[in-house]
Structure formats: structure tokens, C-alpha cells
């Protein structure tokens, strides 16, 4: 039995000069669950993701992923994690296969050819393997990028808006792949998203962020019930348009 949560964040603070990007964030994500970070632009989602990945140092507080401190010992856990974002590219002048081979080496894979073939079949891009990454459509790039994130069969997968700018069909396929992967591997998924349908469909827990703080949390069903709404989109709007910062819960803005 695993005693520690997959992700444990305690009293996390990040300041950029006078700007307070994160204001005492605390949350835990259990093994094998899916957690979404929701919030408007500038709420602190990307900052939180970057700290979870260890590429941004917090001003104070602690972040542990799979029991390891991401500030001091991130290299112990990075081989067991992965990340994908439409805002971070893969080299465009390499083919899909070359990109996946390079990252397979970075993650220390042994049977590289077999793993790439598995993912290409699963994500339906076998025909694209020898095409330059830069010539792919947005949907094809996302599939390759998610496949790259699954190369090392991560125990914790961090996703920054995994279906941003994709059509509903491709978005649905990506979500299905992620859920299948989670079912097979028991991995923990943590995503920042603006796609409320996605959040409702795949997340066990939602953290609502505003101005660098968590202003509400719960399962999508709990949040929808608490705010007396019919969808997460309406909940999101209630939170986004309520008063500043942490006032949402305290002021009892919901339910309506």
C-alpha cells in the first residue's frame, strides 16, 4: 500500500518581485486519480505545473512528487514522470520517429523500436513516423506529443491543456487514450485545462484557482451540486466572476 500521495503540495508560495503568483497553495493528489487545475488566465496554473516539474523554484513551501522533493531531488523522480503541452514544441526538423527515438534515449528506454511501434499504433500515427514533425497538423502534433509523454510509461503525467485548439473528434480520442492509459497503468494524471467537458469527463478531483490561490475543490459532481449549476462551465464562470481571491468559499457565493 502506498502511504504518500502521488503529488503533495504544501503552502506553496511563488513571488516574481512584487507579483504574488502563488499564495499558499496546498493540495494532495492520490495515486491513480486524475486532478484538474482550473482557473482563468493568470490564475497560477502554469506556475503550479512548472513547479511540479521542477523547472521553476518556489519562493517557499514544499512540493513532493512520488515522495521526492522537486526542488532538491527532482532527477530521482523525473524518469517516472512526463509532461506534454501544446506550448512546448518538439524539434520540427526531425521526423516523428527521430523525435521519439531521441526522447526514448533521454528517458533511458531499452526496447525503443518496439515502444515507438506500440504508441504509433495506439495513437494511429504509424503512417506519419517518417514525416517531419513540423509538417504535421495540430491534431497530429498533439497525438505525437502525448505519445512522447507516454514513452516511459510515467507514473505521474502532467498535461498542460492537452486538447487546446483541437477539434472535438480529436479531443475525444486524446481523452480516450489518456483514460485507457490510466486504466492500464494506474498512473496519476494532473492537468491544467480550460476545457470543462474534458474536466467533467476524466477528472476525479478539481482544484479551482484564482489569483494564485485555491478557492474551491471537489469532484466535478460535487462542485456542480454545490454551485447549483448544470455543468462545470457554469461553475467556472461563477468562480471567475465572484469577488477576488479566496472570497468565493468564505462569502458563500454558491450555491445559487
Amino acid at each position, binding site marked *: 500500500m502506498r502511504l504518500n500521495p502521488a503529488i503533495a503540495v504544501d503552502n506553496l508560495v511563488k513571488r516574481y518581485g512584487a507579483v504574488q503568483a502563488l499564495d499558499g497553495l496546498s493540495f494532495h493528489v492520490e495515486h491513480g486519480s486524475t486532478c484538474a487545475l482550473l482557473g482563468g488566465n493568470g490564475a497560477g496554473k502554469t506556475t503550479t505545473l512548472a513547479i511540479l516539474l521542477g*523547472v521553476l523554484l518556489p519562493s517557499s513551501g514544499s512540493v513532493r512528487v512520488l515522495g521526492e522533493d522537486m526542488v532538491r531531488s527532482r532527477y530521482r523522480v523525473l524518469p517516472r514522470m512526463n509532461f506534454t503541452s501544446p506550448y512546448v514544441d518538439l524539434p520540427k526538423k526531425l521526423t516523428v520517429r527521430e523525435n521519439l*527515438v*531521441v*526522447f526514448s534515449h*533521454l528517458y*533511458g528506454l531499452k526496447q525503443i523500436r518496439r515502444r515507438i511501434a506500440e504508441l504509433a499504433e495506439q495513437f494511429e500515427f504509424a503512417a506519419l513516423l517518417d514525416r517531419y514533425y513540423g509538417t504535421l497538423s495540430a491534431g497530429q502534433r498533439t497525438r505525437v506529443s502525448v505519445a*512522447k509523454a507516454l514513452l516511459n510509461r510515467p507514473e505521474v503525467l502532467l498535461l498542460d491543456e492537452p486538447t487546446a485548439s483541437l477539434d472535438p473528434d480529436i479531443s475525444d480520442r486524446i481523452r480516450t487514450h489518456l483514460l485507457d492509459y490510466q486504466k492500464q497503468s494506474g498512473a496519476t494524471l494532473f492537468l491544467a485545462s480550460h476545457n470543462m467537458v474534458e474536466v467533467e469527463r476524466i477528472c476525479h478531483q478539481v482544484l479551482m484557482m484564482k489569483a494564485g490561490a485555491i478557492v474551491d475543490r471537489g469532484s466535478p459532481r460535487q462542485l456542480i451540486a454545490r454551485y447549483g449549476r448544470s455543468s462545470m462551465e457554469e461553475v467556472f464562470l461563477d468562480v471567475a466572476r465572484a469577488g477576488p481571491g479566496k472570497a468565493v468559499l468564505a462569502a458563500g457565493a454558491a450555491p445559487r
Partner: protein
Amino acid sequence: MSGSLQRIYGMVLRHVYLWRRSWVRVLETAYWPTMNMVLWGFVAKFFAGNSSVVAQVPALLVTGLLLWEVLFRGQLAFALAFLEELYSRNLGHLFVSPLRPVELIASMVAVSFLRTCVGVGVAVGLAIALYAASIFDLGLPLVAYFANLLVTGWAVGLMVAALVMRYGLAAENLAWGVIFIIAPISGIYYPVSVLPGWLQNVARCLPTSYVFEGMRGVLLEGRFKWDLLFGAVALNAVYVALGAGIFYAAFRGARQRGALLQMGE
């Protein structure tokens, strides 16, 4: 293959993939060393044919030029290997992978070595064919000079990569030009003794001046001066430590600012 070696191999492979299908990149690697060597080689040959005093100029000039190209190409290839990740907006993926900064540096060193060998190798071959001026006349000392100049290039490349990490692609031009600051005081084509006194003192702080003085010692006097080699090695150790320190400080600064995920065009 151990984890660390496999990651370095992966990063080298990334650049080899890029070169093997792009003849433009390969051509670019060899183009300037070859052009410089051809131009200066003929100039030197002209002088040599018109004065017995300067009969040794072709060997000195061509050898100096080729060794300078080792330094310049080594530094440039190192810095370009880093810039390539910014051009492709790939640094975010690299820094969230298990690739450690020291492994990234090791891969850039390997890439720089390969590119320098290709770039300068073509020019070396042509120098033999056109002027019968072979850099291999230096014999074994050539290996020591080559290694020292490459190491100096990597130390400067580390500093350039650090500045790019700090200031983004606005600092890109440094990769192309910064090394030329030390060209006039490195004694590539003339002895350091022709410099004004205070500049000679500056030159003594550069490993390159020891290498080029050593080169002249071998070509003119047929003597390998160990003291010059030790001077170059000691100074290189200082500059590499300094370069690595600046690189790590810039990396930590980028982690403080959150610049690693967004860094790119």
C-alpha cells in the same frame, strides 16, 4: 549503456539526425574555414614568392588560421547546439526530462567536436593540396594545441549559452562574434611581443596566446615548449570552471524566473 551515457548519446543523435539530411548545414560547417584558408593561403603565397625573409609566412599564416578556426568553430558549434533547442522551442521538454545540465553540456561538447572536425578537416585537406602547408607538420603538439583551443571554445560557448539563457535570443549574435574579441591579442598571426605592454599582460591571461606562441615555437624553432602548454592548460581549467559556474548560475536564475518552459523564438 549507462543512463547518463544514453542521455548524452540521445542528444548527440538529435544533432546527427539534423545534419545527415541537410547538406546546407554540412556545407555551412566547412564553408568559412575553407574560404578563409584559401584566401589567406594565396595572400601568404604571394608574399613568400616576393621575399626570402618571409618565406615561412605561408606555413605560419595557414597554420595559425586553421588553429584559429578550431577555436572559432568549436565555440560556435557548442553555442549553436544550445541555440538549436531554443529555435525549436524544445528546451522545456529537455529540462523536464531526466537530462541533467551536465549531460546537456557533455552532449554539446561532443557535437562541437564532431562539427569542428568536419569543418576544419576540409580546410586542412585543401591547405595540403593547394599550398603544401600541412598542419600535421606540427606533429604530436598539434593534438595538444587542438585540444586546448577546443576547450577554450567550449568555455566561451558555456558563457554564451548562459547569456542566451538569461537574455533569450536577443543574445544570439554573441555566439557569432564574441570570440573575435580575443583574436587581436591571441597572437594568431604575430607574436604577442608586438602588442603594447599592457595588452601583452592581457594576452598572458588567455590560453590562446600560449597555444599560438607554442605553434610558432614548433614551426620556427622546431621546439615544443612545455611551459606554454602548461600555461594554456592551467588557464583553460580556470576558464572552463568559470564558464560552468556562469552556466549553472544562469540555469538556476532561469529556474527562479520560470524561463525554462517558455524559452524560445
